[in-house]
C-alpha cells in the first residue's frame, strides 16, 4: 500500500445499530445536521445481542474494512439484559480475531443512547479515521468478493 493510495482510501464501515438507542442516536445526529462520514453503512438490528459473530465475519467477507456494533448503554437495554450478553460475546470474539492476527482497530463496540447524536457522529468520525489509517482489510478478506 503506497502513501498516495492510502490518502484516497475510502474504507467501508458497517455499523450494526440497535433499534432502540443507537439507531435513534444516528437519527438524532442527522436531524441535528451533524457530519459523519458516508463510509458508514448502518444495519439496524432489534437489539445489539441479535448480532452473532457470523454477522461480523460476513460483513468483513463482503468487503467491510471495519465493523462497529452500537447498542444501548449497559443497564438501559430495551430487553433488560441483551447488551450484557453482547458485551461478553464481542469481547471474546474480538479477542479471538486479535489472536488470529486480525488488526484490533477494525472492530469496536460503542454504547450510544437515543440522546447521544453527537456521540454517534463523533464515534463514527473517529472509527472511520482509525480504519482509514489501517488501510484495506486484507487479513479477513474474501478475495472472491473484491470488486474488480
Amino acid at each position, binding site marked *: 500500500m503506497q502513501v498516495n493510495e492510502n490518502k484516497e482510501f475510502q474504507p467501508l464501515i458497517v455499523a450494526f445499530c440497535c433499534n432502540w438507542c443507537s439507531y435513534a442516536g444516528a437519527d438524532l445526529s442527522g436531524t441535528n445536521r451533524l457530519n459523519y462520514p458516508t463510509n458508514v453503512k448502518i444495519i439496524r438490528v432489534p437489539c445489539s445481542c441479535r448480532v452473532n459473530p457470523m454477522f461480523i465475519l460476513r460483513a*468483513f467477507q463482503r468487503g467491510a474494512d471495519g465493523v462497529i456494533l452500537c447498542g444501548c448503554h449497559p443497564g438501559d437495554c430495551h430487553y433488560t439484559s441483551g447488551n450484557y450478553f453482547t458485551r461478553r460475546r464481542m*469481547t471474546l470474539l474480538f*479477542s479471538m480475531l486479535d*489472536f488470529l*492476527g*486480525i488488526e484490533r482497530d477494525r472492530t469496536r*463496540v460503542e454504547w450510544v443512547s437515543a440522546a447521544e447524536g453527537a456521540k454517534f457522529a463523533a464515534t463514527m468520525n473517529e472509527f472511520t479515521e482509525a480504519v482509514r489509517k489501517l488501510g484495506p482489510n486484507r487479513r479477513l478478506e*474474501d478475495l*472472491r468478493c473484491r470488486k474488480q
Partner: protein
Amino acid sequence: MQEAMIKRAKELLADGSVKRVIGWKRGEFAYDITPAVFESAEELDKDFVFDDFTSANVSKYLVKESKKEGKVLVFLKPCDTYSLNQLTKEHRVDRDNIYVIGIPGGPKLDIEKIKAKGITGILSVKNDNYTLKIDTLYGEETMPFSEAILDKCASCKSKKHVTYDELIGEDGDVLDSDRFDMVEKLENMTAQERYDFWREQLSKCIRCNACRNVCPACTCEKCVFDNPNSGVENKAASDSFEENMFHIIRAFHVAGRCTDCGECSRVCPQNIPLHLLNRKFIKDINSLYGEYQAGADTTSRAPLTDYTADDCEASIVHERGAE
C-alpha cells in the same frame, strides 16, 4: 485393567442392569482402535480392548446410545467425564439411562509421534517400563514412552472423575497443567506473527469436519455450515476467509462449553493445533469472568449465558498484550 473392565461389564450385562457396553474395539494393528458398542460377553472377550492407544473420547456416542432402549454402560476416562457432564447439563443425553464406570486416564500414546521418528511397518508396540519396544517389518525399534504421549495427555488438566456410578481404580485430582503456555506464547507475538502462524496452520485445513464431528460439544442437529438455508453453508473452503470463518465460528460456538478434551486436535488429519483456539477462549473466560471449567458440574451457568453489570468492556482487547 482390561480384564477387570471386561469382568465387570460381563457381570452387569449378565444381571440385566445394562443392555449395551460402550468401549473400544481391537483393530488390525496395535494402534487402530475403534469405539464400539458391545452387546454380549462373547463380543467383549473377543474384541474389547483398553490399552495405551484407547484415547478416543466415547462420551459423544451417548447422545445417540442413551436414547435407545435399555441402560448403557460406558467406560469413561477422567477427561471424558467432563464431556458427559457438559452433555448432561445441556440435556443432550439421558443421564439416567447411562451407567458410568470411571477408569484411570492416560497418558495415552500418539501413533503419529512414533511414525514421525521414521519408524514404519509397525507390527506391535509394547510398553516395557516406559520404554516403547516397537516390532516392525524392518526390525525392532525403541523409543521413550514420554516422547510418544498424545499432546492432549501431555497437558492433562485433571485426573478427577466428575461423574461416575462406580470406579475401577483410584480417583485422582485436578492438576496444575501448562495447557495455556502455547496460547500465552502466541499472545506475546506481534499481530503479524500471529497472523502468519494461523495462516500456515489453517491453510492446511481440508474441511473434512473431523474436528466438528468428533467434538462432544458440537451436537447441533444441523450445523450452520451444513444448512443450505444459512447462507454460509460450504463443503470446502474456497479461500482463506472461509478457512478462518469455519474455525472461528466453530470455536466460538463451543466457547464456555468446551471442556478442553483435545479431541479436535487429536483427530485432525492435517495436524492443525485446533485446541489452541478453544484454549484461547477458556483462558479469556477465566481471566475476564472468573475461573470456569465446562463440565465440572451440571448446574452452574455457562459464562456466555451469564453476565454481571460490571463486566469489562470489549475495548479491553485493545488495551492488553502485544500489538
